[in-house]
């Protein structure tokens, strides 16, 4: 898409099978450094599988995942996390038997002496969580659990933040707020973001690149400025216009 020499993440011709089903049938795309990239597509086209394949939760049968210049295809998830990808799944993304504080501490993997600064930073982004810090995460409301999941994603040392449906289950007001905070956070801390989103309306203002997925492949990709010229393909793939 862009001419920047080295994207932070590049996925090439990835094929993934899940219990015999050919889910990803040659997925290719890239995430440029310091950009926010969104993958859009209808339910069941392989968006989550793409993210889980990047994370090493599924092993691709073909293709490569290159992160920061290193081929990480087929590496275990903990290794990929330590390399600097922070992944927030869309469901079951926190430990309900651990406290809010323990969730954040487990997520944090940077130098020990900085952990209290980091906790402070995350609690300032999500002040709602601070008063529940000693509570088991399973006791939180659905919206609060989602905030905790995002907070865990942000507190982890990373260069690339991957969010699977971050707005799901949050109120529209909150989603708007959240994307604003995310933009601020990534700009200040020099992070790249890859997100999969159904409610693209909210994410639109912070997104730089868009890829459209259909039936296990990435159909096309373009920069956010080109959305208006691409309305016909968007309508064909998503069934709605942006």
């Amino acid at each position, binding site marked *: 898409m862009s001419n920047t020499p080295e994207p932070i993440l590049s996925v090439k011709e990835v094929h993934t099978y899940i219990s015999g089903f050919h889910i990803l049938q040659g997925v290719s795309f890239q995430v440029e450094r310091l950009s926010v990239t969104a993958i859009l597509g209808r339910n069941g086209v392989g968006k989550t599988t793409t993210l889980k394949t990047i*994370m090493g*939760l599924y092993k691709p049968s073909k293709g490569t995942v290159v992160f920061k210049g290193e081929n990480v295809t087929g590496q*275990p*998830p*903990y290794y990929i*996390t*330590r390399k600097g990808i922070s*992944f927030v*799944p869309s469901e*079951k*993304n*926190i*430990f*309900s*038997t*651990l406290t809010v504080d*323990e969730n954040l*501490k*487990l*997520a944090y*993997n940077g130098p020990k002496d900085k952990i209290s600064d980091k906790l402070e930073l995350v609690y300032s982004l999500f002040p709602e969580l601070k008063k529940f810090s000693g509570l088991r995460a399973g006791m939180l409301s659905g919206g609060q659990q989602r905030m905790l999941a995002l907070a*865990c994603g942000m507190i*982890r040392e990373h260069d690339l933040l991957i969010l699977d449906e971050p707005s799901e289950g949050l109120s529209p007001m909150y989603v708007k707020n959240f994307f604003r905070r995310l933009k601020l956070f990534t700009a200040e801390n020099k992070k790249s973001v890859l997100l999969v989103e159904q409610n693209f309306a909210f994410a639109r203002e912070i997104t730089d690149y868009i890829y459209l997925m259909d039936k296990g492949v990435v159909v096309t990709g373009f920069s956010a400025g080109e959305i208006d010229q691409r309305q016909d393909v968007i309508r064909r793939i998503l069934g709605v216009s942006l």
Partner: protein
Amino acid sequence: MSALIDSLVYASMIYMASLGLVIVFGLMDVFNLAQGAFFGLGAYLFVTLYYVTGNLPLSLIVTATIGFIIGFLTERLLIRPIYGNPLAQLLLTMGLLTLLVTFMQLLWPSGLVFPETGDFMLSGYVTLSSISIRVYKFVVIAVGFTLFALVNTILSKTMLGIKLRSGTENRELAAIFGVNISRLFTLSFSTAVALALLGGAFVAPLTHATPDLPVHFSLLAFAIPVVGGMKSYSGAFYASLLIGFIDRFTAYFVPWLTFAVDLLVMIIVLIIKPEGLFER
């Protein structure tokens, strides 16, 4: 009085026999049927080592170390290839149980008696309200309770404990959180087997290494996660206390019913509260 102390002793023994089982099942979903056999092996090894060296701490350390090594090898060579296959795990650990029990019967066909020593802690007696009680019983109780306190502290206060609990709840998410699950599995399994052997070593001065020790404690250990909650680490302790008390008081008043009553408790819990009595 003596029934009370015996209950606590028995509870400690059961706890030591079952803790590893609960940890391994909680974290890895592997029900290690051979856990009780490892416990028995610990008793035999320890008594043998004690005869050879005459040195108690050394015998304990060597027993635990051998346990850790056996656990490490078992996990890497046998358990690792069959993660996620419960039937294969049951068959394999069943085979391991049979193998270990047969091995012990071959090597020590009539069991091993722990020798009388001049040591007060090991072989001495104290008189409490006109009953003479073996001092070592208090040692076993202390070890059991210390182990419980230690496990609780590790689970609630340390990073390792948080990792263990996260892996127990959701392995995939723990991996995303940067936990090296495969290393955690090896460490836990090795520690669990070391704990089993160490437990066997600790009870040996009281029970001696009898031929039926492995099977007896196997069955008791199986009852613990069922009664205490399959993935409840603290439940294992409370369930051990419950079974310990029920067993010893039954033994005191209705001796012919002992042991059957333990399994009866297990069956009753399975019927009325199949998820176990205690929460995670």
